[in-house]
């Protein structure tokens, strides 16, 4: 509704602008009736050339703005951040098993999310393999007993309460439904942070129009509501997901 009224409003302004300028021109040239012939002739000639430039300018501006909106804007909107080091999900899934071997439920029903460095120690107490990433991990985090400041692609804002238990255990959903193929990734992609909201780009989705092909392409509230509507027959109560 909001979008509809906004676009109506903009269209109205455009129409008003064009109409008003024509009316003004007419009055500038004196009484409309008296010099109708000449005035219209002159106007036509001048108008032709004006329209020519006008159209040119219109097209020029349109193309520039259109292209900037499509190409430049997304690059300006998101700042790019690299993860502390590269992480190979595919390798770990192969070695460790399913997602829940690292991203597990705690005894109290809460979801552990990012694994703590301590939980990696069983294998990574000392260098495991010869990659540069492994070296960084062991030297910077294992030895210094620090947590890795991962940038979380699916990080929701503070006002969101998300229950993994409700979705994964109760509703039996697959991790992939929301997180896609991350388990098959061999490298960590560049994290893109929205300069205005501070959110990860993956919340809105890669497509700047927010169009999604897969269920995991976007993580906005509408996407949650859409699935809730389908699966439970209701979008759910507000505080089911907000705190």
């Amino acid at each position: 509704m909001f979008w509809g009224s906004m676009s109506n409003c903009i269209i109205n302004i455009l129409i008003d602008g064009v109409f008003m300028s024509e009316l003004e021109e007419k009055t500038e040239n004196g009484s409309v009736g008296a010099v109708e012939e000449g005035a219209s002739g002159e106007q036509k000639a001048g108008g032709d050339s004006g329209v020519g430039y006008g159209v040119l300018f219109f097209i020029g501006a349109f193309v520039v703005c259109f292209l900037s909106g499509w190409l430049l804007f997304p690059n300006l909107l998101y700042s790019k951040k690299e993860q502390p080091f590269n992480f190979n999900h595919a390798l770990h899934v192969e070695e460790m098993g399913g997602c829940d071997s690292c991203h597990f439920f705690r005894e109290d029903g809460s979801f552990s999310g990012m694994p703590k460095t301590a939980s990696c120690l069983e294998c990574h107490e000392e260098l495991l393999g010869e990659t540069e990433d492994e070296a960084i991990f062991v030297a910077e985090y294992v030895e210094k007993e620090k947590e890795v400041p991962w940038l979380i692609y699916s990080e929701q804002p503070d006002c969101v309460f998300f229950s993994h238990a409700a979705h994964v255990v109760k509703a039996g959903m697959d991790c992939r439904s929301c997180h896609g193929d991350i388990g098959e990734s061999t490298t960590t992609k560049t994290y893109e942070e929205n300069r205005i909201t501070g959110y990860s780009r993956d919340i809105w989705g890669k497509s700047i129009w927010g169009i999604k092909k897969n269920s995991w392409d976007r993580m906005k509230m509408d996407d949650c509501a859409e699935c809730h509507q389908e699966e439970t027959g209701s979008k759910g109560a507000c505080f089911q997901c907000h705190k």
Partner: protein
Amino acid sequence: MKIDRRSFLGLGLGAAAGVAVSPATWKLMDDSSIWTQNWSWTPVPRDGEVTFDNTVCSLCPGNCGLSVRKIDGRPVKIEGRADYPVNTGGVCLHGVSGLQYLYDPSRIKTPLKRTGDTFEAISWDDALELVATKLAEIKDAGKADRIACVTNHGVGTIPGLFGRFVKALGSNNVYAMDTMDKTWEKTLEKMHGVHGTLGFDLENSDFVLSFGTGLIEGWGSPVSNFKANSSRKERGATLVQVEPRLSNTAANADTWIAAKPNTEADLALGMANVIISNNLYNTGYYVSGFGPGFDELTAMLKENYSPEAVAQTTGIKAAVIVDLAKRFVKAGAPVAIAGKGKGATPGSMREFAAVHLLNCLAGNINTKGGAWILSPQDYDQWPAVEMDDAASEAIEKPAMDPAGSVAGFFAKAGADKSVEALLISDANPCFALADAQAVTKAVQDIPFVVSFSSFMDETTQLADVVLPSHTFLERTEDLPSGAGMARRVTGLAKPVIDPVFNTKNPGDAILAIAKAMEGTVGDSFPWESYEECLEAVTGDLWSDLSDQGYAAVQETPPATRPSVDFTFVAQNPAPIAAEGTEADFALILVPLDNVRIAAGSIASSPFAVKTVADTVLLGKDVLVEMNPETAKANKLSQGDLAVIETPRGKATVKVNLFEGIMPGVVAMVKGLGHAMDENRYVNGKGVNINELMGPVMDADSGLDAVWGIRAKISKA
């Protein structure tokens, strides 16, 4: 072709259309609406794994068990520990606010040394060295007996270490802040000839007769009393409250007896007279335990405390007194209790003895639901103190206050200015003692004051060296219960967080100073750390303490009943009069304890201050409570700014009318009027009633027995 207005129009329209069909506008609208939801200055608390740590609260003598909820090791909430024998899950508002004390703006972040009027931050090594050197100088000059220490509580191993340290130097001047426990001790010495303290089995009593105790206003061990009071109905028990003002306890009681101020003892003695003259006392105890003085007592009561005479004194009808006495003594498990308000001040021994007389007559000593005479806490077993010749010589000199009263000590210190050095731990006498100005002056006159405090409170502000302490959430400490509890539980406080600032456990600080002093002083402290000391001296108790966080020391009444010596009461000791004359000061000002305001050594937390009603504190003004009749007589109305004056001082206050207070009595809450610049949540709010009231020393106990002061009030 020329560039005209239409060209610009085209440019504008083209740009608008271009942007409109590009995603920029729509995306920006969404983003900016999200932007308005998240301000960078609104904190986002980090999520993580939830764990719970148990510890014990030491904000008041109640010592409740706490369960601290933590997120990835970060404490976020304090709750009551459900399996703790004192509070079984309940918790008072000060305990819940505990985390605010960790980050209190008046916390001392590092050791400090006074230079002129300001403090200078110094290292721990320098600070400890400074204190050790100075104390050694005093000791070497043969003035060791002029070194004193004041701790908050008198029991447990941290106060124990302070006492031991001062003794090792050669001084008997070891004091803890006075509470009702001290008066009970003196009363027991007089009436039973035993050294110990009194506990009340309120949770099993079926008739509690309270002489002005704030049973649900923080008296004794607050949460334990809340629970006992709350179960009253289910148990069919009765609570009778004697008090000139409708306190919360009075309001919650089954019967409120509005006796005139300071006539509690008269009422108790009047009841005793009814009980004795009707032969209603416990005959079994009469045969086995009633010792000297009973006949004299009988005669004295008959002469002075007839129901009619007592009715005159107390303003309670004679029939009510007789009925109350009969109901009390005929109850299955009656108990009479004394100690006004929170019981944080000692009170008059006449009153305590008169009240305890009722317990003796009812024969409820050391019975279920009665009053238990408990031997002193002695689980901590210390090796003998080693002393060199100088210390042995100095220790022969008596303590400055032989009764062990901290009020008496400061009075003496202020008068003869003979104290050379004072160590203060977790106590704030310059705020909490009556006549705070005089105590402040006395502390200012002491040449060397060392404060072991977590906060820059009124007393610490006067220190020469400040050795900042861990708060109760950062330290290990054994916390024995006391404060009127019948059952005995010793709790173990354990750190739930690493120290937030550069502070130490005061026990460790004392050990370090002793070691730096070397010689016999150092030798008296053979432990490497406070924790090692704690484990060593608590002996048998340690395994329980460390395993379950507490040790239940005593749960059943003591087996024997000491005999009663009635001589003291039979002498009919005189009541403690309020300072001032009725001619000059027509009204009586009484302090009142409000459970939401911390009135002792620690200031209220911001949360606690927030809960205080606007009829108690409004802006920076304290409201004094008075009956509308009193207000009318003094030409005052609700909310008026007024000046209250006592023989000790005057203050500007506001007026709050309350029907529930006796005409002629004005009440002012304790615990306000802090002067702590850093803590804007308490600083300058209200008036410290201790600036309007002076101590009134009780000749019988040697303790401060002030209960109120004469006053007058007029519109400002």
